[in-house]
């Protein structure tokens, strides 16, 4: 009976997508062939999901498309050759770092490899930082389950790690009665997902909460427990605490291939040598399907979905009264795609973030922005708060979501391969769900190794980190400066950041070697002048602290800022 229905489905599929074939293997649907447009390739993947199966692997090629090589460091050496460990975590995003920290609670030799020169360089730093309450997620999904488990302790985790946590709340407004059905749906979901403190607001109450909201907003649901954090600082904090507790982080280390035998990973080849783990954790984000394939355990495919966000000047922050804001049914908004969260979001640093957009793309690492997308997303979300103006935009950035066709997380042990655990296909609410995902990954690893890990008695959940001095009282700040005058020398005048804070960041447990690495940790370069004044000063400090020449300090990756000395004689020329 099942085979028959698959045959019918296969016929239907190959009719709608000529040039492709579909096969059933180990309960998974494998798609092959070639199509003319990326929308078709993705459409085929979504179509396949409709047939009850255990996973969609979409190998359909896009005609004429050559995938660019994965962005990795040019370092090639044997620095980590023959490294043996219990667990090898592939991927330094928030999920990989949360997993490393979770392992550090036990006496386990855990190593995390990250292909870039710093952590959180992909999706984990390219999102709106929302700690979601899960209103737009079905409670049957892994997304919702892991989110619900994580939110309970998220504030405590943030406090322990010294990461700012703003319980700003989330408000979703509606313009007219048509949306009563959505409010009903949300009421049901709020109940199913056990979201606390939900409030239903009429126009008068909305205005009291958000005086600058569009005049079109008539009703709203308000979730006071929704919060925002800085997602890359959370990622880095998790990793730093993990390292403090014995975990290892290897940067500029990319996984290139795996040696398999009898359905087991024997070794993992990187650009820095061959590593021998007992268990591999796949937290490789947009590349998690490729890692799964290397381990001969691919039962899902990633279809990258790009999103762009804009950041507004702090002067515009005053228009928003602390809650992240979206409005449905605005007269001027274009059709459609329900924005995946976001809207108008207050950041913990006092800016406003407007976005994101969502567009399917074959490029896994396309972090470019373009004028049309920024204009569209801004126009759409700005209708929620008409006072916002494009001239308030101080910067914009893009990220790529690691979406599977099932649009859900892949958190499970390997199906074919014995010693792999997947924490893959993580898109929103990944930032929120990471802590609970990490717990299960550790549990799965214990099952694979068939032993219970011993607790690490030295584990300290708290991370010591220099506070942001501008947020201290005058007395506290004065005291710190009297002990270390570098705290009184302001280097970034837009964000009021001292030399001492920059030096401290350089010497934290995860090595920082780039200007952007400092920027992410302590913010110089994120203000109005976008680094025009402070970039040279930050470079000088990095050069001094790292003991190298200033021209060897890069902005990011291998992107040099300074190419050579001035006053070059003929015999010194490049």
């Amino acid at each position, binding site marked *: 009976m099942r085979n028959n229905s698959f045959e019918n489905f296969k016929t239907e599929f190959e009719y709608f997508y000529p040039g492709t074939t579909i096969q059933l293997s180990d309960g998974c649907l494998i798609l092959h062939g070639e199509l003319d447009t990326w929308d078709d390739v993705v459409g085929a993947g979504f179509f396949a999901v409709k047939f009850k199966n255990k996973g969609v692997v979409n190998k359909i090629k896009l005609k004429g498309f050559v995938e660019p090589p994965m*962005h990795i460091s040019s370092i090639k050496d044997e620095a980590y050759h023959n490294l043996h460990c219990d667990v090898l975590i592939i991927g330094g995003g928030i999920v990989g770092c949360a997993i490393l920290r979770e392992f550090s609670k036990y006496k386990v030799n855990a190593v995390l490899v990250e292909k870039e020169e710093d952590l959180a360089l992909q999706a984990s730093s390219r999102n709106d930082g929302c700690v979601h309450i899960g209103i737009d997620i079905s409670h049957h999904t892994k997304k919702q389950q892991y989110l619900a488990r994580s939110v309970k302790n998220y504030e405590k985790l943030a406090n322990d790690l010294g990461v700012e946590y703003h319980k700003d709340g989330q408000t979703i407004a509606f313009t007219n009665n048509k949306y009563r059905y959505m409010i009903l749906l949300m009421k049901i979901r709020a109940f199913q997902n056990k979201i606390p403190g939900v409030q239903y607001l009429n126009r008068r109450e909305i205005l009291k909460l958000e005086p600058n909201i569009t005049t079109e907003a008539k009703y709203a649901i308000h979730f006071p427990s929704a919060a925002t954090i800085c997602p890359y600082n959370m990622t880095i904090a998790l990793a730093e605490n993990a390292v403090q507790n014995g975990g290892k982080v290897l940067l500029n280390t990319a996984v290139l291939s795996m040696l398999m035998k009898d359905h087991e990973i024997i070794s993992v080849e990187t650009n820095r040598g061959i590593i021998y783990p007992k268990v591999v954790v796949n937290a490789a984000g947009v590349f998690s399907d490729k890692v799964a394939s290397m381990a001969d355990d691919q039962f899902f495919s990633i279809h990258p979905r790009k999103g762009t966000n804009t950041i507004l000047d702090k*002067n515009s922050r005053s228009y928003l009264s602390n809650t992240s804001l979206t409005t449905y049914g605005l007269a001027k908004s274009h059709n459609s795609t329900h924005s995946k969260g976001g809207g108008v979001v207050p950041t913990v640093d006092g800016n406003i973030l407007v976005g994101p957009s969502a567009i399917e793309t074959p490029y896994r690492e396309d*972090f*470019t*922005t*373009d*004028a049309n997308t*920024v204009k569209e997303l801004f126009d759409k979300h700005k209708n929620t708060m008409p006072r916002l103006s494009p001239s308030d*935009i*101080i*910067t*914009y*950035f893009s990220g790529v979501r690691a979406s599977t066709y099932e649009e859900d997380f892949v958190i499970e042990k390997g199906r074919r391969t014995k010693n792999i655990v997947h924490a893959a296909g993580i898109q929103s609410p990944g930032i929120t769900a990471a802590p609970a995902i990490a717990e299960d990954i550790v549990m799965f690893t214990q099952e694979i190794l068939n032993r219970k890990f011993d607790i690490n008695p030295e584990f300290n959940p708290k991370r010591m980190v220099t506070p942001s001095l*501008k947020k201290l009282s*005058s*007395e506290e*700040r*004065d005291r710190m*400066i*009297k002990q270390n*005058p*570098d705290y*009184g*020398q*302001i280097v970034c*005048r837009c964000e*009021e950041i*001292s030399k001492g804070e920059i030096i401290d960041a350089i010497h934290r447990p995860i090595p920082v070697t780039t200007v952007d690495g400092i920027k992410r940790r302590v913010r110089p370069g994120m203000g*109005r*002048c*976008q*680094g*025009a*004044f402070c*970039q*040279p000063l930050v470079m*000088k400090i990095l050069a001094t602290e790292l003991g190298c020449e*200033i*021209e060897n300090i*890069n*902005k*990011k*990756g*291998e*992107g*040099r*800022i*300074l*190419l*050579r*000395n*001035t*006053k*070059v004689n003929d015999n010194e*020329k*490049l």
Partner: protein
Amino acid sequence: MKNYNTIVIGGGPAGLAASKCASANGNKVLLIEREARLGGILKQCIHDGFGVTRFKQKLTGPEYAQKEIDALMTTDVEVSLLTYVTKIVPSKGGYVLTLVSRSGVEDVFTNKLILSTGCRERTSKQVAIHGTNPAGVITSGTAQYYINVLGKMPTQNCVILGSGDIGLIMARRITLEDGHVEGVYEVKSTPSGLTRNIVQCLNDYDIPLHLSHTVTRLFGVDRLEAVEVAQVNDVFTPIKGTERIIKCDALILSVGLIPENELASSLKIQLNPKTKGPLCDQTMMTLKDNIYCCGNALHVNDLADYVSESGETAGNHAAQTSESHMRRLCPVSFNSNFGYVIPSHIDLDGELSNVIFYFRSSKDLFNQRLTITVDDIQVFSRAYSNLRPPEMERIIVNLAKNKNCSSIKLQLEDVG
């Protein structure tokens, strides 16, 4: 808490002149500077052309700054370097400033404030440059700092966006340091910088200037590899089909300066939307009593000489005017041939015999007559054969006979 008569924030040319003058009549003055040395941006402006009117010499920026510093050192002005103002709070009779420096956090009191905080450069994101976000995209001021202060080259082969003076100066500087400038691209249909800089920076070195063009996209993940330029129409929108890709390793931006007025905004001082600096009267006092503003924080100047002059105006009045002086402000209006006029108001109970007006035209104009009418009576007239927005003009007007007027109008009109 230390008490001062006047505190000057910013030790560039405006603040140096302002604090020197403010110390007259035994006034106790504190000059606050966030860098390790005085001189402001002039320290890195090693080209000449400074001081032609003020000192009758063609000085380089550092030489000009040194003259102003030397003059300041003959006074009793207290200077606090590597000091940053984090907060200003109104207090009885004046203001309390919170200062952060290597010695700690300190509050100081002053009767009067002079804001000479200069300006910052417009960024790539503010001119909608998209694509990747690589190393190699810097503003010309930052490039200037790398080359002239650190002795390092941030480029070997660059494209410059914006024909403002700093961009032109850097085009020449990069060429002299054996770098290559592929071209200067300007979004407007006329150049933004001083004409003489077009000659001595671009023409002298055969660097092409492409008007009505802009940079739309960047390529290169870690380091810039190329930019896309496009022609723009009369509303500065890129024209499809005119795109061209230029290989380069740097994009140097010279797309405008923005007065720094965070402190002014925090004090709720009203800003002039055209200049992005505070509204002010002829003494450089803002609309908040006893707070003055001068130099590039007030409006972006072309010449350091006028920056110093505005500092002197502010400092002199801070020294001479009583704190409790009540002003009678008359607004200054102007027609649309002006981009802006400073001051925006005249204090009719202030010094009126030598009122200095600074203005820019709103577009390239030829054969104009500027007239000033007070209550519909003409009190000033001058002819101009050529006016360009990048070239600020200055006039001195005697309004002593107009102590009780109710309207002051400036007009620029075609002559015949």
